[in-house]
């Protein structure tokens, strides 16, 4: 750990992730970065990037994975629990309350209309996210081809995800290794 970073106490760990969970709308990553690296300095920039990479390649919710990795780095199993509990507690209560309100009033035409508008916008946000990720794809024909294949298999043909992953993930990683080798040589 770099000397300029701070080791949080268990209490600080819980409260820190509590505030991350509560304030992030539509994904919490940008906020987590600002708080963990810039404001509280629990992690250096490199450590954050490294943990983010880990959270993204492992299956499961990225930010939950990051909470586990960060919590356990400072306080072992207890730290992992505290970080995840802090992250999830308040948002879970809020979202379930909203869902109960929706369920209670969903027969009202106004509520149905509002939800339709909300759902179309939320789908648009997801499309924008896909576009942003797509423009940042590795500039290599193989990477683009694999992304398109995955999209067609899951999005168009609706093949089971497990099957698609079992075939494409090892192939893609192996091909990435070959690209890495070629890069080392040149």
């Amino acid at each position, binding site marked *: 750990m770099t000397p300029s970073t701070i080791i949080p106490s268990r209490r600080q760990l819980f409260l820190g992730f509590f505030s991350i969970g509560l304030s992030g709308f539509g994904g919490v990553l940008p906020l987590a970065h600002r708080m963990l690296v810039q404001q509280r300095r629990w992690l250096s920039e490199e450590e954050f990037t490294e943990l983010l990479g880990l959270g993204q390649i492992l299956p499961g919710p990225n930010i939950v994975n990051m909470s586990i990795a960060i919590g356990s780095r400072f306080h072992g199993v207890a730290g992992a629990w505290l970080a995840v509990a802090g992250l999830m507690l308040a948002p879970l209560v809020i979202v379930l309350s909203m869902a109960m309100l929706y369920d209670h009033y969903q027969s009202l035409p106004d509520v149905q209309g509002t939800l339709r508008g909300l759902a179309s916008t939320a789908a648009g946000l997801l499309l924008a996210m896909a576009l942003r990720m797509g423009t940042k794809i590795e500039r290599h024909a193989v990477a683009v081809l694999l992304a398109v294949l995955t999209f067609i298999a899951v999005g168009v043909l609706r093949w089971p995800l497990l099957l698609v992953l079992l075939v494409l993930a090892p192939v893609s*990683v192996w091909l990435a290794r070959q690209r890495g080798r070629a890069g080392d040589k040149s």
Partner: protein
Amino acid sequence: MMLLLSLLASFSVFSLMAVGGAITLIPEMHHYVVESHHWMSGQEFAALFAIAQAAPGPNVLVVSLIGWKVAGLAGACAATVGMCGPSSLLCYYVAQLWQRWHASPWRRAIERGLAPLTIGLVAGSAMLMSEAANQHWTGWLLCAGSTVLAWRTRINPLWLLAGGALLGFAGWI
């Protein structure tokens, strides 16, 4: 009880398939709760996703809402624990090893190899969600508009969601 166990078991499996986060699971979850079990309609599925997006917190909350819709509070807990449990356990152990593998070329290859798959999965999820959410051409128009605004500008997504909700409330969607 069987229902809760089924939720717990299914989401535990999904947990380990969620390469790139909970969002990539949307087609799989849609298939599970809408197409094979008929626990909700496609529109209800889209509404739950919209509520999860409009609330603070991580994207994974959509899983809690699906569980809640199927089996109430206990269902929400079962789905959330299933979704976070196995992947968290895996992450806990791999996090210890990860730094040791720092220099391994395979680590870079895994990151580099999984990135395009994640992009394809998110794109697939976005397409399915658009089909589920947009019932009329006005919905597609709003969807396209918010896509462009969210993609091309730095506007806070909350404003877009508020605008979309308002248009829907006015009866235009």
